[in-house]
C-alpha cells in the first residue's frame, strides 16, 4: 500500500535520454576517428589513446572517491575527455605525456571546479594546452602515416610554403598531424551521426567551419586546406559542441561558433603557432556567460 502511494511531483515519465547514454554515444561517434588514427599511425597510437582514457577514468574515480569523498557514478564523461585528449596528441608521443595530460585535464580542467557540469573550459583542451606549453617539442613532433619517420603537418607546410598534400589525402587522412584529427572522413562520419541523433547542435559545426571558410575565401587561402587540415573538423564537431562549455541558447551557439572559426584563422594566419583551434575554443569558452547573457531567450508573450 505505502509503496504504491508513492508521492512525487510530475512529470511521472522519465526522460528517454540519459547523460550516460549521451556520453557513450559520443564515444561511439569518436570510434571512426580513433580507428583511422590507429590505421594510419599504428599500434603506438592505440597505446596513446588507451593510456589517455585509462588515466582520465582512474584520475576521476580517485578524485571523486578520495578527495571529494563522494560515491562515484560511471557517467562516461571521463572516457570522453580521455579519448578526446588522446585524439589531439601527436601519434608518436610517449604514453607518459598522454598520462600527464589526462591527469591535468581531469583535475585542473574539471574536478577543481566541482566536476561534471561545472567546468568553464573544455577539459581535454586544458590538458592538451598544458602539454603544448610545457613540452613544446614533443607536442609538435609529427609522425608520418604508415612510417616511423617524422613529417610536417599540412598547416606547417602552409605556413612555410612547402608542398601541400592533395585534398583527397586530407579528406582520407594520410597526412601528418594529431592522431585523431587527420581523417576528415572519419570525423565527419561521427559528427554527422551526432547531429542526426540530435545530440549536438548543427549550428556549432556549421558556424565554426562556415566562418573559417569565409575567412579563407576573403584571404585567398584554399578553402579545402583550411577546413580539412589541422584540428578544425575535430574541434568543430567534438570540442566546440561540448555541452558544458558552450552556450545553451541557439543564438549564443552561433556567435560562439563564429568566434571560434575566426579566432582559429587569426591564430593560423598571424599567430606564432601554425594551429589555433584549441586556443580559439578555450577563448570562446571563457565568453560563454557573456554570450548567453546577450542571447537570453524571451518568454512567449513577453512585452517587446
Amino acid at each position, binding site marked *: 500500500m505505502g509503496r504504491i502511494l508513492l*508521492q512525487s511531483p510530475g512529470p511521472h515519465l522519465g526522460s528517454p535520454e540519459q547523460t550516460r547514454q549521451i556520453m557513450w554515444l559520443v564515444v561511439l561517434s569518436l570510434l571512426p576517428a580513433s580507428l583511422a588514427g590507429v590505421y594510419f599511425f599504428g599500434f603506438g597510437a592505440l597505446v596513446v589513446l588507451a593510456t589517455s582514457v585509462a588515466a582520465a577514468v582512474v584520475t576521476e574515480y580517485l578524485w571523486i572517491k578520495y578527495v571529494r569523498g563522494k560515491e562515484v557514478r560511471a557517467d562516461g564523461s571521463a572516457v570522453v575527455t580521455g579519448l578526446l585528449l588522446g585524439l589531439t596528441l601527436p601519434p608518436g608521443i610517449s604514453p607518459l605525456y598522454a598520462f600527464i595530460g589526462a591527469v591535468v585535464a581531469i583535475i585542473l580542467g574539471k574536478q577543481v571546479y566541482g566536476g561534471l557540469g561545472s567546468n568553464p573550459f573544455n577539459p581535454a583542451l586544458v590538458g592538451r594546452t598544458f602539454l603544448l606549453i610545457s613540452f613544446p617539442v614533443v607536442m609538435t613532433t609529427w609522425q608520418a602515416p604508415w612510417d616511423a619517420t617524422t613529417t610536417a603537418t599540412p598547416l606547417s607546410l602552409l605556413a612555410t610554403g612547402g608542398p601541400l598534400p592533395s585534398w583527397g589525402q586530407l579528406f582520407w587522412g594520410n597526412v601528418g598531424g594529431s592522431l585523431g584529427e587527420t581523417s576528415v572522413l572519419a570525423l565527419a562520419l561521427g559528427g554527422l551521426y551526432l547531429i542526426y541523433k540530435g545530440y549536438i547542435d548543427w549550428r556549432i559545426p556549421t558556424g565554426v567551419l562556415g566562418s573559417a571558410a569565409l575567412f579563407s575565401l576573403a584571404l585567398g587561402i584554399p578553402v579545402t586546406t583550411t577546413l580539412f587540415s589541422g584540428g578544425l573538423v575535430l574541434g568543430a564537431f567534438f570540442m566546440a559542441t561540448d*555541452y558544458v562549455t558552450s552556450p545553451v541558447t541557439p543564438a549564443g551557439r552561433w556567435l560562439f561558433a563564429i568566434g571560434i572559426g575566426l579566432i582559429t584563422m587569426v591564430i593560423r594566419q598571424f599567430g606564432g603557432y601554425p594551429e589555433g583551434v584549441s586556443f580559439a575554443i578555450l577563448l570562446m569558452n571563457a565568453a560563454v556567460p557573456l554570450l548567453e547573457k546577450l542571447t537570453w*531567450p524571451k518568454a512567449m508573450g513577453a512585452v517587446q
Partner: protein
Amino acid sequence: MALLSQLFKRPAYHGGVEVYGPRRPLAEPITRIQPPETVVIPLSQHIGAPAKPVVEAGAEVEVGSVLGEPQGFVSTYIHSSVKGVVKGLVTLGRPGGGRVSAVEIQVSADQPERSSREVDWDRLSGFTPEEIKDKVLKAGIVGMGGAGFPTHVKLSPPKDKPIDSVIVNACECEPYLAADSRLVVEAAPELLAGLRLAMQAVGAKKGYIAFEADRVEGIKLLRQLTADFADVEVKVLPPKYPQGSEKHLIKSVLGRTVPLGALPMEVGALVQNVATLISIYRAVLYDEPVTHRVVTVNGGAVANPSNFLVPIGVPIRVLLEAAGWSEEDCAKVVLGGPMMGKTAPSLEEPVTKTTSGVLALRQAELGPTEPSPCIRCGRCLAACPMGLYPGYIAEAGIHNDLEAAEKAGAMACLECGCCAYSCPGNRPLVQEIREAKLKIRQNQQERKGS
C-alpha cells in the same frame, strides 16, 4: 506530401516535446461505473473559494441535489452524484497538499438511470447570455480538463474585452488520456451544441474545434457534422505536448499570442474543454448539474485500459479494480495525465469534476529518476513551450536568488514538465521551479503587505 509540408512548416510556437506513451483506449465505448456503498464529494473541486455545505447528516439527497453553495463569484455549486443519505462532513487530504471538507453519502440501493440527451437544435438559440451563465453556475460547471476554473466566470469577460472566437480544446495532449477523445466520438452533437451555447454566451462569431492530428475518428466525425456550419471550423494541429495548453492552443489556432500574465480574453479568445462544453449543453437545456464525468483508467499496471462514466465522489480504487489493475505491478498511482497529474494520496481519493484520468504506472514506465548534475545540454531550453531557460530558473531558485529566477520568467512557467521530461540528468526541474515560484509569490505578498 502532407507529411512533408508538415515537416517544413514553421511550428506555431517554440518548444514542446513528443511524449512517448500509449494513447489508448479509444476504440471501446465508455462504460458506466456503479457507485459503491459510500461516496465522498469534496466541497472544493474548483479554483476559488470552496462551496459552503448546505446539507446535514441524515438528509436524503437525489442525483443533482445541492450539497454546497458558492461563496463569492469565483466559486461554484456542488451536487450529489447519487441517491442516498448524507452521513456527514469529513476532511480529505488533497493531491499535492492541503485539506478540504467533503460530504460523505450513504448510497441507496436503487439508483436512477442516467438519461441520454438528444440534441434539440431549435431550442438552442432561445437562451440569452445571462440565462446561459446562470444555468452554468447553478450546474456547478468548472473547466473539466484539469484546471477547474469556474466556467461561469470564464463566460463573463468584462465589456472592454470582447471575445470573437471560442476554441474547443479536443487536444488531450498528454499520453495515456483518452476520455475527451472518446467523448468527442460518442457525444459529438452535444459537444457542438455546447460550443454553440458558449459562443452565444460571450457573443463570439467563430467557433473552432482543435484536434491533434492523430485523433482521426473525431476529426472525421466533426468535419461531417460541421459541414453545414459556416461559423464552426475543425482545426488539425500537430500532435505535440503541450498542444492543449490554453496559450499554445490559441497561438496554434488563431495565431495570437496571449501576453504574459494576461488571460485569453485579452486576445479575444475563449478556450473550453470537451467535457465542459457537453456539461454546458446539458445544464442549459435540461438543468442537469455536473454529477458524473468520464475518466480514463490506464497505465502499464492496468489490464483493460478503459473510459468510465463515473459518479463524482467514487473512490479511485473502484475504477482501478474495474479496469483490472495489478496492485503488485503498480509503482505509482497518478490522478490526471503523466506529465501534469498528481500522485494520489490514497486509493480512497474520490473522483472529482477535474479527474481526467487515473493511471496505475509500472516502475519501468516511470523511467530513471535519480538526478545527476546539469551538463548544460540545453534540452530544457529547447523544450520549454514558454521560451524560458528552465535549468537556470531552477538553479537560481535552489540558491534562493529569487530576483534572478523572477527576472528569468519563473512566473511564466506553466509547470508542464517538458523540461524535466527532456532532462538527461533527471533533474526535478518542475519541482524546483514550483518552489521558486512559491517563494516569489510569498515575497510579493509581503511587499504588498508592508
